[in-house]
């Protein structure tokens, strides 16, 4: 099992001597573009197919990338001596964890930023309370949990589950099954090619602007925000849209449905019907928000 490790307090070392002063000048000149942190960790692990990567961090910017090597590369940076970053291998599982070393710690001192590069078929379990999470091109099952951190995902191919209390969620060009739950986060699903999407937020808005695959099921639900669905004239779906105390605004020319699955109360704003052959299924539900089904510009 190969493992390389470089760790150190690079800033304190640099501050010694004239050479360090020169470097400091460079840092001051270019610091905004490439920040230098006091603590740096880099570890690389050899793994087999379908490795599991678990990640637990209280705060920071987390970037997960993929490559086609059977290796996991963890790069972490932070300034505070009150936390410690660590990555360990147990069999085909890599655990990445930020430890808090002091009882009293201010929010800035909790922050650690990570870039983790994993094989495409890796399975991920990510927990990052605040900051931001970016995940790109993972084909294995991925779960992301955050409290305040936004989640930005692209080209995901596996079963992708996101739970965020108040963070936003954006998913572009994803083809796997997508499930996202939030309380106040806004959810955007754009250019996706997925056959199964379930997106739920309470007060956030939801935008669905992607492909409707034949036999695909798309369920969007919120409490009070806006649900906005874009379609093109070539799409084919059965739609059921209900806003109990809000409104439904539709531009799709629908033919009447053959049956109702759940009949809403009379006072609700509801819409049922088929667009073209009705090959996909679209279920939109809101308590008092506005549901819009609009033609793509």
């Amino acid at each position, binding site marked *: 099992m190969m493992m390389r490790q470089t760790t150190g307090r690079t800033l304190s070392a640099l501050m010694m001597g004239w050479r360090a002063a020169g470097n400091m000048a460079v840092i001051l000149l270019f610091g905004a573009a490439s920040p230098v942190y006091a603590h740096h960790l880099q570890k690389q692990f050899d793994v087999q197919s379908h490795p599991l990567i678990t990640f637990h961090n*209280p*705060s920071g910017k987390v970037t997960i990338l993929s490559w086609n090597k059977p290796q996991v590369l963890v790069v972490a940076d932070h300034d505070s001596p009150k936390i410690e970053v660590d990555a360990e291998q*147990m*069999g085909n599982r890599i655990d990445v964890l930020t430890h808090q070393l002091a009882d009293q710690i201010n929010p800035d001192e909790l922050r650690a930023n990570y870039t983790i590069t994993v094989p495409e078929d890796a399975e991920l379990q990510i927990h990052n309370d605040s900051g931001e999470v970016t995940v790109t091109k993972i084909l294995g099952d991925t779960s992301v949990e955050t409290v*305040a951190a936004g989640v930005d995902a692209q080209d995901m191919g596996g079963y992708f589950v996101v739970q965020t209390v108040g963070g936003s969620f954006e998913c572009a060009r994803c083809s796997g099954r997508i499930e996202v739950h939030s309380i106040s986060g806004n959810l955007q699903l754009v250019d996706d090619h997925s056959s199964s999407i379930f997106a*739920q937020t309470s007060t956030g808005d939801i935008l669905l602007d992607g492909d409707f695959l034949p036999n695909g099921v798309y369920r969007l639900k919120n409490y009070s925000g806006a649900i906005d669905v874009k379609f093109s004239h070539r799409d084919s779906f059965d739609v059921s849209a209900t806003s109990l105390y809000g409104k439904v605004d539709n531009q799709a020319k629908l033919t009447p449905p053959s049956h109702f699955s759940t009949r809403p109360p009379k006072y609700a704003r509801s819409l049922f019907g088929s667009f073209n052959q009705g090959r996909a299924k679209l279920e939109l539900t809101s*308590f008092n928000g506005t549901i819009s089904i609009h033609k793509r510009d």
Partner: protein
Amino acid sequence: MGMTRCEEFWNRSEAWMENERHPEDSDHFAACPRCRALIADLEMIRKAAPLALPETEPSARVWSSLRAQLEKEGLIRAQGSKWWQNLLPTGVFRPALAGAYLGLVIIASVTFGWRNHSKELALIHDAWLDRAQNAMAPLQAQLNSAEAKLVPAAQTQNSDVTATLNRNLAIVDNMISMCEKSVRDDPQNEITRDYLYTAYQQKADLLATMAQSGAEGR
């Protein structure tokens, strides 16, 4: 050129196999040996499948190798402490959360159990309200008790997290009160009951997150 009767029958044979029979098909089926042969073959395949492909057991190697892998990854230990216990909130919070989840089970049974009795709903409307309110009372008490313990403890050192948790708890509480009002106004409405159930579930999840954040923040 139009479809022949056989083509029409074949196109609808999926429904026939599911016992959903088109009125025109029965006469054709009785008269057409080709279509009868099709259905007889499909039935025979359906019946033969479990006999021809019986379940078999993997070799003992699979469990021994799986067990070794689980031990290697630290997922099972026959004795001693469990690795994930370090990740859980401290014991004081767990009974409260267990209670909250128990409450959710009660509300779920009230919310969804009634779908099976929709025909009698009108007759026992008042009884339902009593039952629902009785079920909600312990749930509310459990959630409130969990909240009283968890919210002060959940002041994590991460101010973003604390602010987000508190803001969202207020959102969920507001949703619960609005949904409860809606359920009282229109108890037959499955959609409002579903929203109420979702709101309770969100509150329990949120309290669990607060417990975890509070425990980690200390």
